[in-house]
C-alpha cells in the first residue's frame, strides 16, 4: 500500500474530530475491521495507520448512524450496507463481461450473480481478470489451480502483509528439431529471480489487486 493512502491514528482523530475513547470503543464493537489497523515502524516505535479513505468514510458512517442505532447494532447495519454494495458491484462486473460462470466457479463462488462473495474469491477474480488477454487459457487454468491450492485465507493474509506478485512465465525448449513451450506460474516477492531462459508473459501485483478490491468494493 502506498504511503499516501495511509493516515496515522493521530491524524484520524484530528480529521474526524473523535477521541481515543471512541476509536477504541468502535474497534471493540467490530465497527472498524482489524485488517485496517496497519502497524508500521516509525522513529517512535510501532505506530498504527489506516487506509485513509476507508477509515474516514467509515467514521462518517458511524457518526451518522449512531444517532438512530444502538452501538451494538451498528456493525450489523454497516455490514448489510457493505454486502449490498458488494452485490451491486458484482452484478455490474458481470454486465461488463469481466466475471463469467467459469471464473466464479473456479474461485469457489458457484452461481455468482447477485450473491456476495468472499474477499478471497473476489481477489481470485481480480487476478484472473487482469490476466485475460495476456495469458493463454491453459495458463489461466494454471493460475486458478495455484490460487485454489492456497485457498482458506492463508493467501489473503499473506497478501495483506507482503507484496506478492504472480508471474506467468514461459520457456521454449528445442531439441533435435522439435520445439515445445511450457508455462509455469510463480507467486513470490517482487524481486524474484528467474532463469534467463524464462520469458515472463504476464505479472499481477496481488497486493494491489486486493487493495483495489477492498477500496472499491468494501
Amino acid at each position: 500500500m502506498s504511503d499516501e493512502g495511509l493516515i496515522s491514528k493521530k491524524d484520524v482523530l484530528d480529521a474526524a474530530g473523535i477521541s481515543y475513547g471512541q476509536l477504541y470503543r468502535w474497534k471493540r464493537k467490530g465497527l472498524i475491521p482489524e485488517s485496517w489497523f496497519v502497524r508500521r515502524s516509525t522513529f517512535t516505535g510501532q505506530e498504527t495507520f489506516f487506509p485513509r479513505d476507508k477509515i474516514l468514510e467509515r467514521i462518517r458512517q458511524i457518526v451518522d448512524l449512531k444517532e438512530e442505532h444502538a452501538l451494538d447494532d451498528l456493525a450489523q447495519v454497516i455490514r448489510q450496507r457493505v454486502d449490498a454494495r458488494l452485490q451491486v458491484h458484482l452484478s455490474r462486473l458481470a454486465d461488463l463481461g469481466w466475471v463469467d460462470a467459469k471464473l466464479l466457479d473456479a474461485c469457489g463462488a458457484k452461481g455468482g450473480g447477485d450473491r456476495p462473495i468472499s474477499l478471497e474469491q473476489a481477489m481470485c477474480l481480480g487476478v484472473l481478470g487482469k490476466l485475460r488477454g495476456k495469458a493463454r487459457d491453459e495458463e489461466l487454468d494454471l493460475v486458478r489451480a495455484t490460487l485454489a491450492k492456497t485457498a482458506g485465507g492463508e493467501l489473503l493474509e499473506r497478501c495483506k502483509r507482503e507484496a506478492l506478485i504472480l508471474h506467468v512465465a514461459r520457456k521454449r525448449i528445442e531439441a533435435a528439431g522439435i520445439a515445445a513451450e511450457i508455462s509455469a506460474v510463480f507467486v513470490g516477492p517482487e524481486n524474484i529471480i528467474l532463469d534467463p531462459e524464462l520469458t515472463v508473459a504476464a505479472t499481477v501485483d496481488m497486493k494491489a489487486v486486493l487493495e483495489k478490491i477492498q477500496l472499491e468494493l468494501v
Partner: protein
Amino acid sequence: MSEKKNSASISGSGTIAGGTYERVSISGSGKVTGEVTADEVRISGAGKIEGRTHANRITTSGSASFDADVVAEDEMKVSGSAKVTGDVKAKELKCSGAFRVDGSVSADYVKSSGSLRVGSDLEAEIFRATGGFRIGGLLSADHIEIRLAGHCEATEIGGERIEVHRGGWKERSLIMEGLIRVFSGGGAAELRAQQIEGDDIHLEGTTARVVRGKRISIGPDCDIERVEYTDTLEVHPDASVHEHTKR
C-alpha cells in the same frame, strides 16, 4: 434455557458426556468429554471440560481447565486456578485467583484481583485490576483502573480513561509491601507497556515507550520515553519523561 433439563453432578471422581444441562457441578475430580451448554457450571474440585462451554453462570474455585472457548452470558467467577485454551466471552468476569486464557477475553466488566494472564487481547467496557496481569496484545476498555500490586504488563493499552495508581492502600508499611510482594509472585508493583493511548490518562509506577492522549498526568515513579498530548500535561518531579510534544 426455559425447558426442563437434567443436571449433572460429579462429587467423587467421574466423567460425564457433553450435552445440554440445567446445572453441571464438579466437586471432586471430574471431566466432561465434549461441549457443554448449561444454565450454570460450577467447578470446585479439579474439573476439566474438553469442549466449548456455554453457560449463564460459570463459577470455579478449585482447579479448572477448559479446553475450548468459554462463553458466560451472565457471569464468570474464578477464584482458584483456571485455564482456558481458547477465548473467553462473558458479561462480567471476576477473577480473584490465577486465571490464564490462551486466547482473548471480551467482557462488559472485568475485575481482577488475582493474577490474570491473557494471550492476546482483553476488551471490556470497564477493567479494574488490583493484582498482577499480563496481556499479550491490546488491553482496551472505556475505563481502565489499575491499582498496582505485582507486575502488570500489556503490549498496548487504549481507552477513554486510564488510571494507574500505586498500591491499594493509602499508607502502606514496609511489612505490607513485603507481604504483597510475596503473594503476588515476587514482582515489583509496576506497569509496563509499549504504548498507552487515551483521552484522560493518569499514570504512576509505569514504564512505557509512548503515551498519547488529551489530558495526561505522569505521576511518581514513571519512566516514559515519549509523551504526545493535545490539551494538558503534568509531570511529577519523581517521574522521568524523556520527550514530550503538544499537538
